[in-house]
């Protein structure tokens, strides 16, 4: 076997070797999701039926897409608070630029993704090159995108604002490939792709290196600023992708579409074991976290728990998970 071949196979071998605490977290997050489905099936006949699981996974996929972008920036110790209105702007842009025509679907998708990438570029440059704190920059950017979306679309009352997403895109949510809904296959594809980038590429190594110690990474030749900008661009792109997915699912964009996804994306990452300090965690965990979170919310709704109760349970759950897993090592 050649040298190169062996390194590749070594990488595969390393994937399965040893159960590190971080990998255990991913397993635990999936376990929690299965547990909730189990409890749900016990309480409600049909909660764990195929149709119900499909519906929950579809909703989880929206959280999961936003969480993908959030995971990327959290891995370098950043955060992206601009996602709600980047998502919303992309959703409105997709509908208004395609006007519902199938032949415009591809350009409209590219336009919406380009919007996300551009916003991410601005965020990333301000954070990496002008040392604006990530919380402040993305918070301000959320306001900027909100104002632009509301202003340009005149509060979603513009002539083309009533447009639907092209049927070709909407069909993703109504078709199945080999018995599996297309949208879930797409999410699976995204999950595998993000997992591949994080675990098996030099870019992924650089992300973890930057997150663990930016200075050491810089001194070992990682272009820390470039990596940071790229990650915020990815974050913007995933927010836009979630916007496209939500318009495809619902047919039409609405205002405030993205608001629930900020806290849910952070919560999903936390449940999945992504450390807010950067450098630790994996998207597989965040994806499992998204499923756990949405399954929990669905179960509480099925239990007819009022909104206030859900909000409290939601907070207590995050605290409990943090107390179980999220404690910093004791300072020396």
């Amino acid at each position, binding site marked *: 076997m050649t040298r190169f071949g062996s390194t590749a196979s070594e990488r595969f071998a390393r994937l399965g070797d040893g159960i590190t605490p971080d990998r255990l977290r991913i397993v635990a997050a999936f376990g929690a999701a299965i547990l909730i489905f189990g409890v749900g099936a016990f309480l409600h006949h049909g909660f764990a039926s195929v149709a119900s699981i499909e519906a929950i996974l579809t909703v989880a996929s929206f959280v999961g897409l936003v969480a993908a972008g959030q995971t990327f920036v959290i891995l370098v110790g950043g955060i992206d608070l601009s996602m709600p209105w980047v998502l919303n702007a992309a959703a409105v842009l997709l509908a208004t630029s395609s006007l519902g025509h199938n032949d415009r679907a591809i350009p409209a998708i590219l336009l919406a993704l380009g919007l996300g990438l551009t916003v991410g570029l601005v965020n990333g440059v301000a954070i990496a090159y002008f*040392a604006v704190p990530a919380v402040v920059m993305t918070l301000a950017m959320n306001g900027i995108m909100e104002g632009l979306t509301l202003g340009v679309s005149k509060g979603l009352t513009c002539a083309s604002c009533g447009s639907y997403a092209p049927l070709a895109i909407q069909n993703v949510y109504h078709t199945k490939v080999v018995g599996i809904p297309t949208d879930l296959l797409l999410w699976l594809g995204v999950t595998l792709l993000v997992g591949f980038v994080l675990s098996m590429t030099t870019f992924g190594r650089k992300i973890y290196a930057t997150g663990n110690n930016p200075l050491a990474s810089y001194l070992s030749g990682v272009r820390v600023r470039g990596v940071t900008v790229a990650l915020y661009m990815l974050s913007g792109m995933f927010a836009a992708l979630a916007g496209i997915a939500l318009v495809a699912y619902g047919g039409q964009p609405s205002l405030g579409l993205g608001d629930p996804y900020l806290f849910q994306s952070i*919560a999903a990452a936390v449940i999945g074991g992504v450390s807010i300090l950067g450098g630790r965690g994996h998207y597989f965990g965040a994806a499992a976290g998204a499923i756990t979170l949405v399954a929990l919310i669905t179960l509480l709704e099925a239990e007819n728990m009022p909104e206030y109760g859900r909000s409290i349970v939601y*907070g207590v759950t995050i605290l409990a998970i943090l107390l179980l897993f999220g404690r910093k090592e004791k*300072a020396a």
Partner: protein
Amino acid sequence: MSASGAVGGWEQPPTKRWKQSLVQGSPVLLALLILVTLMVLYIVLFDAQLGRLPGLFEWTSVVNTGLPTALVAVGQSIVVLTRGIDLSVGGIVDVSNAFAATHIHAGAGSMLGWTLVILLYGAGAGAINGALIAYARLQPILVTLATLSIWQGVALEVLPQPGGTIPTTYTNLLANPNRPWGLVAIGAVALLWFVFRRTSLGVNVYAIGNDEYAARAHGIPVRRVKVATYALSGLLAAAGGLFLAASTTGGDPTEGNTFVLTSIAAVVLGGVSFQGGRGSALGALAGAFILTILVNVLFFANVNPLYQPFFQGLFLVIAVLLGSLLGRIIRRSSA
């Protein structure tokens, strides 16, 4: 500037001390400069639109609108000074606001009693945050995100829909629409900050924000100080909720949610560094009123209200860039 001179002055030769003050005080100075500029702009635009100067009623309204944000922002700034962040202030404002609107009735006993209970609740809620962060060693942003959700839920339980009433006496005491009594509250907060800054707690806050390990090595009770800062933040958020209820003369269990973002924005505009240990609550106070007057300026400049968040966001970015640029210039010239 008031809050500036003391920090680290001992390590500078006496002749350089004013420069040290300038480095420490420049963010607050910049915030005040922006505030004054916006006030002038407001007066000019108001005059251009209505043909007269803004009078007592208009200024009182500015004070009353800005005061809840200002109180919450002062609490937030103390937490940010220790390198923390408190997202739960939104939920604490919600609960205080809802409690005030459903429980405070006319009569000195009810008003005083419930005010104390609500303030104690705020301090307690903050102390829980602080304990989870300091003793259970959890991340501030995640802990307060979770408690934000919990308090939002509690507020909806206390007051499911906007409603409830606030006794007129209470409104007239805290947020009189005709007389700017709110200025007294602002003065009191500024004075208290001046004192706080010189207490051992105040000094410890800066020490922890600058270098937590060094602070611990010097025998500062880091964990207790952190609990105290979050408790203060909770207390001030509850006070913000009370002033909000007084000025809107009713309750809304979700109105506090905007305070998460506005308090952070005010802290940033006030020049408090997210790296901790640098800045002053007075800056946050100014920052809160910058945000309030900015809304008025945009209104009288005939900016389409739909674009308002756009200009607020842009303004925030520019202010931060300006602040860091100014800091760099001053530090270079005094090096």
